């Protein structure tokens, strides 16, 4: 895991047991999926890899991810009942044990989500220790995201000027970028940007962004 260097990283989070990585981290993975999708999914296929597949059930990883998809916090007393609550809300949830390969952290889940308009999203994230997570891929595109900061995620078509226009827009709102990564499938193909910022970008910025990207989401800090 990363080096915890602040008081409440050492003492915290307040959470439902039994495991900061397999339970609290799993809730955050679900919450991240929900945030990037933009709403509670109507359908979710949850693929569990490595230790998540091996010991996830005993740690309540399945319930925890679904709790996150429902927007719960890691200390929500409803986590143990998350599967029933999802069913009552009409959400179709399926679990699959998968092997994503050795490149992936042992505590990794891939979520295949569908929203009410039929839009699909695939997001892969790992629980890297102490409840902290790291997003690895969105729609198959490598993207690094910690969820610690205000984050802008976009899916767009790879073409010259998109990145410059986006960062210029952020600058216009006086927002400072702390980290940024860009990836694409192939030249001119689908591409993604993940931009972590020191301040939140106002929602009206999204309407401008959507003139040149297919999807843009603002994600508030997870922790």
């Amino acid at each position, binding site marked *: *895991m990363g*080096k*915890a*260097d*602040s*008081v*409440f*990283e*050492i*003492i*915290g*989070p*307040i*959470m*439902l*047991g*039994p*495991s*900061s*990585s397999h*339970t*609290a981290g799993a809730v955050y993975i679900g919450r991240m999926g929900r945030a990037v999708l933009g709403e509670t999914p109507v359908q979710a296929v949850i693929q569990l890899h490595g*230790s998540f597949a*091996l*010991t996830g*059930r*005993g*740690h*309540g990883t399945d319930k925890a991810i679904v709790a996150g998809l429902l927007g719960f916090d890691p*200390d929500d*007393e409803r*986590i*143990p009942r998350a599967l029933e609550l999802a069913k009552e809300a009409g959400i179709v949830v399926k679990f699959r044990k998968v092997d994503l390969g050795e490149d992936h952290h*042992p505590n990794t889940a891939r979520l295949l989500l569908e929203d009410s308009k039929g839009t699909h999203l695939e997001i892969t994230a790992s629980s890297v*220790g*102490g*409840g902290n997570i790291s997003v690895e891929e969105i729609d198959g595109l490598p993207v690094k995201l910690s969820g610690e900061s205000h984050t802008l995620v976009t899916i767009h078509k790879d073409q010259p000027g998109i990145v410059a226009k986006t960062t210029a827009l952020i600058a216009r709102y006086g927002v400072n970028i702390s980290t940024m990564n860009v990836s694409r499938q192939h030249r001119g193909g689908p591409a993604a940007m993940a931009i972590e910022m020191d301040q939140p970008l106002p929602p009206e910025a999204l309407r401008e962004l959507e003139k040149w990207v297919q999807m843009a989401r603002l994600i508030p800090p997870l922790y």
Partner: protein
Amino acid sequence: MSNMQYQTLHQLIKLAAEHNKRISEIVLAVEAEQKQERPEVLRNQMLTIWHVMQQAIKRGLTEDVKSLSGLSGGDGKRLASVTPKLLSRQVARAAATALAVGEVNAAMGRIVACPTAGSCGIVPAALAFAMEQFKVSEEDVIMGLFTAAGIGIVCSLNASISGAEGGCQAECGVAAAMAAAALTELGGGTPEQVGHAVAFCLTNMLGLVCDPVAGLVEVPCILRNAGAIMQALLAAELALADIKSRIPADEVIGAMHEVGEALPESLRETAKGGLANTPTGKRLRSRLP
């Protein structure tokens, strides 16, 4: 007290000495500066955490908790209900408390990761003990948590607080060192004595492997919370008697890092070795859903 920083226990103790403050006060001041937050706000945040810890203690000691797997639950409550035959009533109570909070965690109850969920019973057990033994106030307990956090930060920066990286010594070991530091400060110890308590405690926890049966945070994790609080009490007792560790705390932390790196993968939370690999450990695993 601006522009203070620490990465080692030596630096933390030196800052305390220079400013004539306790370790807890330095940890709080540094955090307030880094977060650009008023100390008052951070103390309140810690108070919320302490209340969650207290609720977990109460639940584990009074309710019948049972984990999903059925492997754990009820031992803390049982130990608290009998008259101890060897330990003093308070020390037996501290062990029962550590077990109880670990059991609440295994039963998907609400706890505070300290530093991890698997080691969540040790620091609360120490502070509940200090409250009764030293008759300290809730405000003192809050400051004790800042002392504990400072030790956790130093261990995290120079070794690890993850069982998957450093074995159980990194989780229950660090939690025990955090508890020993808080107990020493709340018992009236000097910052230097806090350092010796950390050194003693980690010395006795050094090398402890992470070998959870069936990969679950139950056997032996819950028991090791109780073992760790015993080591914390011993370490604080030694330090408060002004006994000094031959090896300085920062070097013990360095040794913990080296030992953690040397541990084979099978003994770092993979459930492949140690107690997880015993005939009974394997049988328990095969019986789980």
